[in-house]
Every structure is written in structure tokens, then in C-alpha cells.
């Protein structure tokens, strides 16, 4: 990937990554490694896996996610993240705005007479 594309992706990711995290927690709780791996299945969503943890910490501090410790089958207990009602609300608002925004951008970039 050339530098310009990388920068573009960085900028787009910056505004959307936290909502992808919230969306992954919409229906189930997950622990950090599981969450990072799920994000990693989408090309370009995670560059440094470790940078997700400061984001998770901030989401927790903002009350969008809560955490609980649960036993793991092998090894130490895991910290599980789940959406709070506030997190559900923030995600819902983003999804609405995102759909409108995505449609608007698509109208232009997909070409044709506007």
C-alpha cells in the first residue's frame, strides 16, 4: 500500500473503528483477544492489535461498554466487554448517520449524472 492510501485509511478508520467495536459487542460479550481477532478479519481495520486496548479503556471510561471478569478454560480469568444501554444508544445513532452518510458518498463516487 502506498503512503497516501495508508493515510486515507487511517483517517477513515479513526472515525469508525470505535463503532465497529461497539457493533461487535451488540449481540454478545467478548474478551479482548476475541474482539481484536474479529476486527482483524476485515482488511485494513486493525493495523496494530495493541492499539485497540486504549480504545476499549476509553469506551469503558465513557460508559459505552462495561467489563466483567470470567473464568477462561485455560489460563487466567478474562476481562469480557459488553455494551451498556448508553453504548447501544450511541451505536444506534451512529448506524443511522452512517447509512445516510454512506448513501450520500456513494451517490457521488459511484459516478453517473447527479
Amino acid at each position, binding site marked *: 500500500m502506498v503512503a497516501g492510501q495508508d493515510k486515507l485509511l487511517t483517517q477513515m478508520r479513526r472515525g469508525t473503528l470505535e463503532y465497529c467495536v461497539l457493533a461487535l459487542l451488540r449481540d454478545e460479550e467478548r474478551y479482548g*483477544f476475541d474482539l481484536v481477532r474479529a476486527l482483524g478479519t476485515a482488511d485494513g481495520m486493525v493495523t496494530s492489535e495493541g492499539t485497540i486496548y486504549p480504545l476499549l479503556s476509553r469506551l469503558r471510561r465513557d460508559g459505552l461498554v462495561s467489563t466483567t471478569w470470567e473464568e477462561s478454560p485455560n489460563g487466567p480469568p478474562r476481562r469480557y466487554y459488553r455494551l451498556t444501554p448508553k453504548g447501544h444508544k450511541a451505536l444506534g445513532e451512529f448506524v443511522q448517520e452512517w447509512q445516510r452518510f454512506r448513501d450520500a458518498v456513494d451517490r457521488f463516487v459511484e459516478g453517473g449524472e447527479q
Partner: protein
Amino acid sequence: MNGIRHREVGEYLRRLQRSMANLPAERRQEILAEIEEHIAEDLAERPAATDADVRNALERVGDPADIAYRFRLQSSRNGVRASPRARPRLGAASRQVGRESQTSVDVSGPDRVRAASCAAAHGHHPPHSILSSRERFDTLPG
């Protein structure tokens, strides 16, 4: 969890701890513990992990300076002040990229410098050795 005792993992975690040294202690410990657990989970899937596997796992986790930088950005949201050490550097970085609006400069300034200075060098998977991270950290903005 044998992998966590690997020497390079220990060195990596110490480097991460140092790079986050001036950030809020409670959250720093939380992030450090989470990343330590992340590495352990990763290596647990590879019971016969070679040195190269360990290095690859650490490269995926990322440059400690990068993680500390993200931490700083997240901490500077919602009115939590960035560390004193970070502030002059943020200012210097924003001057390098020219004038920007007051509201966006703290977040986008250093990131743009980083993107410009680092993206060309490594893109998604930095080819640089983890061992060179310390030198890189000392020269990075933020």
C-alpha cells in the same frame, strides 16, 4: 501460557510500560495487563511457537510507541489533559504540518505527521525489527 515467559515478550512489555510511563497509572496498568493477556492468548494457540512466531506476534500487537500514542490520544479526549511531556511535542508536530484549526490540531496533527513519516516506511506490517522500536520511539512525535 509458556510463551509469556519468553524473553522477548518480557522485553516488549517492559518497553511498553516505559513508553506509557507518563500516562494515568490505573489505565496504564489495565492496558498493560490486557496486552500481556492478548499476547498470552495468541501464543497459547501455538504451543510450539518458535522465536519467529513470538516476534511475529509482537509485531502484530504493534510498536509500543504507537500504542502509547493511541493511549495519549484517547486520554486527551473529553478534557483529560495529555501528559506534560506530550504537549510541547504535539505543538511541534502541528507546526510541521502547517496551520490547522484549533479543535482538530491536537488529534490530527501528530497523526498526520506519523502517517507521513511512518506509513511510507512500513504500511500494514512494519518490516522493521521490534528491537529497533526504542530508537523509533525516541524520535516519534507525541
